[in-house]
């Protein structure tokens, strides 16, 4: 390649075409320089720091300021737990564990005293005290524009710091969700930094100061990567890794490849099941497959003031239709077995909160047809059931575009329903459109997800059936079923204030039973979150029921993970160059080929052009 370039140079008549030749000469020299430089240079990094690289194909880090979070900022929130601590955390089983608060006592049902750690320091060296906690909670109480975080303090009436390491909190009513829903989601801000901030929601927070196990180093902008370094003074002990990197991927295929080739050490939040077999076939990759605190449900628009098919407001019809859905089959067809069928409206991942006595409506088309007959919906001459008031059982069955894999599910379901004379058109609807439809109650049925990114408290999952959550636009609540039952509402308020876990569990069980009897939803399944780790390099991901890299549990993962000592050195060189000097040469070769080709083309073009001077 180089010789051909030099031949061309030799053939050129340097006397006549000085300008062009100079350029070609310079180009050729550049190529030679770069090529030789690249083969000699082998990018290296210091051999000692242990870096844990997490690949992430989910919600990305968009902002470093927790006060600017919205509910869609799951990715930003996840990494903020590296830097910021809360009073309490949850462990891998969803149980509350101490964090900045080492212990707490209830003086009375609405007053709690928290004892704080004594030796915590902020990343800038200032000591952490109870004043920081009081400052943070008061900030959130008084600034409603910090909309997301404000939702976690709505039951807190006041907070004081009797001394430097004690915080006393008063709630407006007894609150069962105080620890595992509210406190666990409130990051504690340093008072000495945040008092000088003017506008909390537009504050960039480029250098976030927290008490957490990792210090922020830098990021590449929204959706690229973020670098963290271990906090040597972390009050529960320095993490076992030196550096932590978050790298965002927009393609799950690319992420799987990165894990396989060693460019990342951990991958989350979940892999599509198509990729799982490739992952499990690799010896140095360990797949960690656990249920997430979420579930897919089939919703009937039963709102009396809504615009869905009126037959869906009839409990008998809903029960009949529930007999015409087989969620075990769906778990196989849609998720390849990577989902657990639900029996009730609490996700299986929430363990003991799930009422074990509830059995899902069994799949029985004959019974479904009989129940519809009994409800007065007889088969018409065209094969479609018609009710006594003339309502035909014709409706839409939608899935939001961001859960497009559920389209398979609605296709199956509409197939089953067709056999009993109910026509449901399955379709994928754009998420914005479906949100709007749901907002305005203009839909019939859909499959959607309830997911808790704020912890493992069951409150979210039972709150959506309250009567006050079913309201017309423009102020609907969270209900998308339109269910209205005063008994259920009373039980809801009761469980919210029941601080005795056993008693609360009994109430939650009863509520699940009511929902099941009224067939408000058909709960479908709880999918596994399939994460993966390079088990030849790192170990220590804690066991438990919940996925390690998830809201709440992530903190446990990053403080427990440690390198497998013998692999440290090789892992460093692999990651720094993703290959050996050989690869740099290959790239150099490719670059040289391209540049040389350009040079040759350029030379050929100019040679052809020049004769016009003579003519």
């Amino acid at each position, binding site marked *: 390649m180089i010789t051909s370039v030099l031949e061309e140079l030799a053939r050129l008549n340097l006397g006549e075409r000085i300008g062009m030749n100079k350029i070609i000469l310079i180009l050729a020299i550049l190529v030679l320089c770069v090529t030789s430089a690249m083969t000699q240079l082998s*990018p290296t990094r210091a051999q000692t720091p242990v870096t844990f690289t997490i690949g992430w194909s989910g919600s990305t880090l968009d902002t470093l300021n927790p006060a600017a979070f919205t509910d869609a900022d799951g990715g930003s929130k996840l990494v903020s737990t590296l830097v910021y601590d809360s009073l309490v955390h949850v462990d891998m089983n969803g149980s509350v564990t101490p964090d900045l608060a080492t212990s707490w006592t209830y003086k009375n049902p609405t007053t709690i005293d928290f004892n704080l750690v004594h030796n915590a320091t902020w990343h800038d060296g200032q000591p952490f005290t109870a004043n920081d906690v009081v400052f943070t909670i008061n900030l959130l109480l008084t600034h409603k524009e910090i909309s997301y975080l404000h939702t976690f303090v709505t039951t807190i009436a006041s907070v004081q710091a009797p001394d430097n390491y004690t915080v006393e909190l008063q709630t407006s009513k007894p609150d069962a969700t105080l620890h595992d829903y509210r406190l666990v989601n409130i990051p504690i801000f340093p008072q000495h930094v945040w008092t000088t901030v003017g506008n909390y929601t537009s504050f960039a927070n480029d250098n976030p100061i927290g008490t957490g196990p990792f210090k922020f180093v830098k990021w590449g902008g929204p959706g690229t990567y973020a670098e963290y370094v271990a906090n040597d003074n972390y009050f529960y002990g320095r993490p076992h890794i030196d550096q932590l990197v978050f790298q965002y991927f927009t393609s799950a295929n690319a992420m799987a490849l990165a894990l396989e080739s060693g460019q990342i050490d951990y991958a989350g939040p979940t892999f599509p099941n198509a990729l799982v077999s490739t992952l499990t076939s690799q010896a140095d990759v360990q797949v960690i497959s656990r249920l997430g605190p979420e579930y897919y449900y089939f919703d009937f628009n039963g709102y009396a003031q809504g615009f869905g098919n009126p037959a869906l407001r009839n409990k008998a019809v809903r029960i009949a239709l529930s007999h015409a859905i087989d969620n075990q089959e769906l778990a196989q067809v849609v998720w390849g077995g990577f989902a657990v069928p639900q029996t009730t409206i609490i996700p299986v991942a929430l363990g003991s909160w799930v009422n074990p006595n509830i059995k899902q409506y069994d799949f029985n088309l004959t019974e479904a047809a009989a129940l519809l007959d009994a409800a007065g919906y007889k088969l018409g001459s065209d094969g479609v059931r018609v009710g006594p008031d003339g309502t035909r059982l014709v409706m839409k069955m939608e899935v939001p575009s961001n859960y497009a894999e559920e389209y398979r599910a609605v296709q199956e379901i509409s197939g089953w329903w067709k056999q009993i004379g109910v026509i449901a058109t399955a379709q994928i609807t754009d998420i914005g459109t479906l949100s709007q439809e749901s907002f305005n109650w203009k839909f019939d049925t859909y499959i959607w997800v309830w997911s808790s990114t704020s912890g493992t408290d069951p409150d*979210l999952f039972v709150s959506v059936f309250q009567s006050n959550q079913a309201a017309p636009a423009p102020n609907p609540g969270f209900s998308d079923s339109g269910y209205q039952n005063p008994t259920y509402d009373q039980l809801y308020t009761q469980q919210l204030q029941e601080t005795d876990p056993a008693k609360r569990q009994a109430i939650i069980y009863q509520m699940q039973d009511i929902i099941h009897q009224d067939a408000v939803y058909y709960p479908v399944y709880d999918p596994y979150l399939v994460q993966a780790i390079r088990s030849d390099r790192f170990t220590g991901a804690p066991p438990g029921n919940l996925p390690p890299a998830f809201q709440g549990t992530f903190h446990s993962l990053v403080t427990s993970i440690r390198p497998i000592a013998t692999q440290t050195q090789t892992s460093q060189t692999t990651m720094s160059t993703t290959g050996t000097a050989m690869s740099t040469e290959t790239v150099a070769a490719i670059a040289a080929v391209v540049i040389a080709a350009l040079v040759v083309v350029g030379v050929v073009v100019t040679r052809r052009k020049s004769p016009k001077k003579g003519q």
Partner: protein
Amino acid sequence: MVNLAYFAKKIMGLVFTIFLVLSFNFYLFRILPGNPFTLLFRGAGLSSQAMHDLNVQFGLDKPIWYQYVVYLRNTVVGNLGISYQTRAPVSSLVAFALVNTLILLSVASVISFFVGIFIGIVAAWKRGSKVDVSASATMLVLYSMPTFWLGIILLFAGVIYLHLPVSGMTTILGQTGALPQFIDLLRHMVLPLLTLVLGLTGQYVLVMKSALLDVFTEDYMITARAKGISNRKLLWDHGFRNAILPMMTLVSLNLGISIGGAIQTETIFSWPGMGLLIYRSILARDYPVMQGAFLVVTIAVILANFVTDMLYPLLDPRVNSQ
């Protein structure tokens, strides 16, 4: 000078076009069902009260004409607003993405332009021969391959056999020093570049070839050959320099449009460019980012066309710019 008046008129025309496109975009985005906060409400569990508060905060509760006027006024002074998703200023988001896309796409455009011309010329000159048939067929196949599929194939081959980086623009915690960082960038560019070039070259080859073949049938080509001009002079002086004109139009079209980012390539390789920015902002109904990004794309396309308009008389003296 008379030229100046013509120039000024042209610029006015540009500004008016940009204004029209912006207005149309503004309207178009607003007729998408679901504003960003209903999306958050149902899609991510934002409370209805918070949703209303956010609506007010971002001025979405004002009448549409008011929002429009505010938008125009802000755009003129260069204030592109802040993103609903990240609260970051749109101008910095777009600038960051634009630079990344330009790095990738300008190199890809240049390479595919030259390679495309070269192959196109060879194919036209040797029309009918094995060289032509194989080149044209290969180019057609590459041009019609879905970018996404091509990208994934290259990704697998590149990562497994050549140990190239899987994604992004730089190796995180990477090297210090300008030259190692530059090489690192090159290594990250190889695969997306290859994907883009393989896709883009096809068009240039086909257009170059057909333009040249058209020119070959002209009378002056026969005259020139009769005069005894050598093959090479014929090809370059008479053929190529006339056939290059439609190519320039193609180049300017592509340059303008490609500012919008090669979305598929950027997705596979997680290249943080304009395509990815636009895609994510559409998903989240992030109006300010969408508007900012489309403003940039609009200006790019219009500018590219304008530059071609001005260049054309230089390339082809027959075009009278008056």
